[in-house]
């Protein structure tokens, strides 16, 4: 797993993907910080954090599109799958590498919190809670992206597929509200990633939301492992 993690992490920065991802995230976060905090003269950062879900839906597919798809297309998966490393180890290595790049991206919000500190001390517990929520949301999005990448050999197809899935899971509550049956709306509300994430931005640290995101990570990484395994038997 360590070897795969190191290679993946390095590959993000020998190809433009890592730079494009970071640049897009930093630009959007910077703009939102200006619009929601600096220009308004507010030190509250909840608006900034709640707005970041939009950019994650766009940039996470870029981060994860090549993880599994490129290995299959270029046949380098032969090197990985014939080595004494389990498929779980390979998938975990790729997930951790993408998550590390993601953590580097969201760490910019800490810098923004320090900037607001110049004017007035922010509520650090809320900032920390938001940051944990953003990290968990990103982790679950990355797991979904890796799964989408595993479904195809084509990076663009993987990215589009991931974008579609992230749109659905993020705004499931909006879709659910249009459904004719109330129980379906409730289910959609419970499964909506956005609703779970917004709870963090309101300053509510609910352990069920933490478990929801961690479960989503495990479910999608498990599906990736099973899909890779199944392909070997088919």
């Amino acid at each position: 797993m360590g070897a795969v993690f190191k290679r993946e992490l390095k590959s993000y920065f020998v190809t433009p993907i890592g730079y494009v991802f970071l640049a897009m995230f930093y630009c959007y976060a910077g703009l939102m910080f200006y619009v929601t905090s600096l220009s308004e003269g507010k030190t509250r950062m909840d608006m900034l954090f709640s707005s970041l879900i939009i950019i994650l839906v766009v940039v996470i597919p870029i981060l994860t599109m090549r993880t599994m798809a490129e290995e299959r297309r270029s046949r380098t998966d032969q090197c990985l799958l014939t080595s004494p490393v389990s498929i779980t180890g390979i998938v975990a290595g790729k997930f951790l590498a993408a998550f590390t790049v993601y953590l580097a991206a969201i760490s910019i919000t800490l810098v923004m919190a320090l900037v607001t500190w110049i004017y007035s001390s922010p509520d650090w517990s809320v900032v920390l809670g938001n940051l944990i929520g953003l990290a968990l949301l990103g982790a679950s999005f990355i797991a979904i992206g890796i799964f989408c990448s595993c479904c195809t050999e084509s990076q663009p197809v993987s990215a589009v597929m991931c974008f579609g899935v992230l749109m659905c899971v993020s705004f499931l509550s909006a879709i659910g509200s249009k459904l004719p049956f109330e129980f379906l709306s409730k289910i959609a509300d419970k499964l909506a990633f956005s609703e779970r994430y917004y709870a963090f931005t309101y300053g509510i640290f609910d352990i069920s939301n933490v478990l929801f995101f961690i479960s989503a990570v495990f479910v999608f990484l498990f599906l990736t492992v099973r899909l890779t395994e199944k392909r070997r038997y088919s």
Partner: protein
Amino acid sequence: MVEVKNITKSYGSHKALSDVSFNANDNEILGFLGPNGAGKTTAMNIITGYISASSGSVLIDGCNITDQPAKAKKEMGYLPEIPPLYPDMTVNEYLSFVYELKKCKLPKLSHLNDICTLTGVGSVSSRLIRNLSKGYKQRVGFAQALVGDPKILILDEPTVGLDPKQIIEIRTLIKKLGKRHTVILSSHILTEIQAVCDRIVVIDHGKIVADDTEENILSRFDDQRNVYVTAEGEKEKIKAELHKLKGVEKVSSVKSKDGVNSFVLKTHKDTDVRRDVFACAAKGGWCILEMRTSKPTLEEIFIRLTEGDDVQKEVR
């Protein structure tokens, strides 16, 4: 060392491999010979654990590749048909990655240096793989298979795309490695198999059609003798006269130019028709320019083995 037991691989209704069994012994170079699409790569992918068989088992040094994959894979180095290279890495970075991936315990620097020297990639070790020639990429693929000093080397068409000099170098390297490793080498190039391998397994349409040493396979098909005759005269007349000779089973014309014709006469292995051919020429008034006999070559046997189901049944 490598035991392949009754493996079958089906893709839907198509059987890529059907009840394939063979062994590769310690320090033996086993040639895996077959035409394109015969199932060589599928068999190798199953042996290395890249894909799974529909039924049957593969034992690597006593470990089942399905039940104990990590232990079995640690004993193997695999060079697939397309070397699994990352173009964005340098040769050094790539070999270091493979070293860590294989959880190798040997001293890293000296081990990788030895491999680079052995495969001749030392001079390009700091270059990006994407900028290397096909020959060097193949060598880097070979180098990654050697990382960890595995007991078993699985090489799928290792000389494809190499120039003649490189082919000779790789063959020499395989022979050298065969003294310390078990090598399974797949190829559809007969001369390569003949030059390198101790034993040959011939596969066709997913079935093993021969499994023996080159000498034994040749002797098994030593039921025929070919007589090559080059004669000056009228082609059809000569052919008809040769056909009438006692013991000649088949006459085929292989070349004809400016009144000089070449024929191949197929006879039973115990029949020598050369004197009769000489007498026939003297009687018919045509001139023999060249006459020689030969036993079937491995190439001819390979064609016989892989040309139809009837022949396969005959061999079995």
